[in-house]
């Protein structure tokens, strides 16, 4: 089936089998392998992408359901050659070790902080309960997100909704 969607700012048309999940389509059809698959049953959050502004598990969605959607994957987060403020905070705080959960963490937190740039530590912790990380123990991830809030607050102020 042919679907058209916008991914990381580009309009894309792709032919997918009806039973193909969105994460498989991104990885296999579009070579966007930054989106990872850790469980394929909706628990680990590694496959999280942003669909129409919301963090979504791409392993629980069929590619055809994304027809017409606007999608951001981890590949679309950096500002050109520079890391985004959230990515840079992850690096500063050593919020990643093996990097496997990282794309899902980044997309989840990017969606959260875009909506709620003043999110509390508790709120941040709570939101990433759906993203499993086996390496870091989560503490530096929360610290990185807290540190990145300021940049989201600034961009909210400069471009009010």
């Amino acid at each position, binding site marked *: 089936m042919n679907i058209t969607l916008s991914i990381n700012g580009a309009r894309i048309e792709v032919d997918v089998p009806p*039973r193909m999940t969105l994460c498989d389509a991104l990885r296999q059809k579009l070579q966007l392998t*930054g989106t990872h698959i850790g469980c394929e*049953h909706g628990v680990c959050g590694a496959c999280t992408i942003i669909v129409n502004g919301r963090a979504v598990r791409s392993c629980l969605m069929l590619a055809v359901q994304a027809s017409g959607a606007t999608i951001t994957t981890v590949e679309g987060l950096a500002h050109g050659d520079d890391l985004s403020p959230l990515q840079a905070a992850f*690096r500063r705080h050593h919020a990643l070790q093996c*990097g*496997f959960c990282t794309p899902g963490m980044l997309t989840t937190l990017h969606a959260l902080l875009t909506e709620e740039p003043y999110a509390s530590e508790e709120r941040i912790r709570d939101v990433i309960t759906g993203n499993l990380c086996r390496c870091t*123990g*989560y*503490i530096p991830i929360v610290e990185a997100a807290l540190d990145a809030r300021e940049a989201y607050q600034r961009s909210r102020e400069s471009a009010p909704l």
Partner: protein
Amino acid sequence: MKVTPAVNTFVGRPVERVEDLRYLRGKGQYLDDLQKEGQWCGAVLRSSVAHGRLVNIDTKAALDIPGVHAVITAADLPSVIPTIPFRRPNPTIAPYAQPVIAVDKVRYVGEPIAFVLADSAEIAEDALQFISVEIDTLDPIVDWRASENGATLLFDSTQTNIASVFEARSGDAAEAFRAAPYVRRERFSVQRHTAMPMETRGLLAEWDEATSHLTVWGAAKLPFFNRRAMAGMMGLQETAVDYLELDVGGGFGARGEFYPEDFLVAFSAKHFKRPVKWVEDRREHFLAIAHAREMEAELEIACDLDGSILGMRGTINVDIGAYVRPNGMTPVRNVTQFIAGPYRIANLAFDGRALVSNKTPAGTYRGPGRFEGCFFCERMIDLAAKDLNLDGVDMRRRNLLTQADMPYALATVSPNDGFAETACDSGDYRTTFDQCLNEFGWQEKSPLNGQCIDGLYHGIAIGNFIEGGAAGPRESAKIELERDGSVSVYVGSSGVGQGVETIMSQIAADALEISLDRIRLFHGSTSNLKEGFGSYGSRGTVMGGSAVLVAAKEFLAAFQDAAAERLRVPSDQVTVEGGVARTRDGRSVPLIEIAALELISREATYHGSKQTYTFGAAAVHVSVDPKTGRVNILDYVTVDDVGRVINPLTLHGQVVGAAVQGFGGVFSEHLQYDSSGQLLVGSLADYMIPISTDYPHIRAISLEQYPSPNNPLGAKGAGEGGIIPVGGVVVNAIASALRSFGVEPRSLPLTPPHIWQLIQETKS
């Protein structure tokens, strides 16, 4: 132009990681991200029966499915089915080796029976259900007691289900127990759980007919051993095989050992002359990754009335699952050797028995045998202190090793699998203990012990641990000057997410006295070096880093010679500093200039078989809800001494991450089997690893007061220490909290229902 300081100090600084730049952008290259033109995808048909005789396998219907190319079973392999080689052979384990595919018998749910090759993973997986397998079931053995009993034997060629017994001895335990004024006996157990990295396993193999060369992508941990193993099993020269490392989504001791799938994927690639790729799914991972930790200990402690520990002895029965895997004996040997941990106990006698059962074969998981041993030992000390009416803190300090004891020989183990003798290398173990008490605020928190506040019972505990590191015998590194003046560094250590690129670059930059951005680091692939080992047993940094130092020395000597020739003076008239060679009369030539003229390449090997011992202490404050059995970790502090800190950022990450894994093992992770040998968990929804809200209060401090005398860096291992003390201290704190109930937990995991049950039992 950028001026490089004469002496760099990258080592010791929180250098941000090089690898992060690609991971953060989604540009990492993990196994499943790799596709090869014309590749076939594999899926493994696994036994659904725990124990039985294979009567018949019918693959015809599967082969009829469009897109399916082949189905491999034992009948398609050479008449003698290869078995997976041991990393540390010992005299009794040979009959317990695992064939790469089930022959005649199946011995665990999940054992590979057939391997389907198809155009896509989906088709291959669909085809699995069209293979019909007939199995005559046999009685399954699902616990060590039934295994010991031997009424059913797993291996017809043997007389026993005990694959091996490791004996650890020191002094004269029998005499010490006879003479001791106080003796106590206890039984403890740890449940089966495992590493559970977020990336499942996977492999991609390609056979090049023209050059008769096999390439295997997806290496981790031990590329060189696995290459040797693969070459042997395939009847190839070692140089005809390469194991290449990609980015690795977590290892923790379980990934990267030689698994049955390594052979099945590579064999198929060679046989069909096609690239073959296989990626495990999560459910499969539960059945196929090495399990760990399942053991029960019957122990005795002998003390003087002042709390001096005179001796410890006992038997540890380890359920190792259906086969002896390459490193399956490591936890068994470790637990017998390291139970006494950081304490000066002159008389020790432990037997560690490895018993087979109809469950997934066991291997290593971070801190193998050490997490368990520390739990046993720390529990034992607290129980003894209570009996003797002593303060547990005083009793521990009295028995901790000091610098005067160094080097301190640990119990000798037989059979000798290469680690029979080992000694703690340096340190006064009271330093980390005292600092931990301080950081934790032991004095202030002590009054809380056993108190009930707002319905929650509070408890605190402290314990000590050692972490062995730097497994020998050697590691290699190569340093090569590139035309543009940059330097390529190749190391045998492998990356499993711990930041090896950054750490090794820091060491190389300091040794070569050049800036970090001039170094490119390559690691973990057999194509880089003639020989190497890898990253396991907390050895990556120490062994690989030391190899880099040795290679750097030779490289600089070669640079000195080349520069001298160019400056037309004898070599000894030239000094090298900061990447520049100078004569006494002030003439100079920088490394960059030499790079344009000649290639300098030096490969060197660091030899070292003496292990290093990181030591440390951990303290915890818990509250327990007696109505639900739920435990909260209110504060957890760990202080260790790692000899030398290379990168405080990554080190801290290792310690905190490991501690959280440890909490998972204490409270929630359990690979439970039913009586028919079926694994009862199969998803991340029912195997509960810690989530972000579980353990937010962890503090970790690392010291470098006692460098290791055993390597030029002075470094010790650091990947495992964080997990080792968790079980011991947490359970002691829970016992302290619940002392008014008289609850003394002896087995893990301490799930809320388990704790609730213990409270109910003491009430009745």
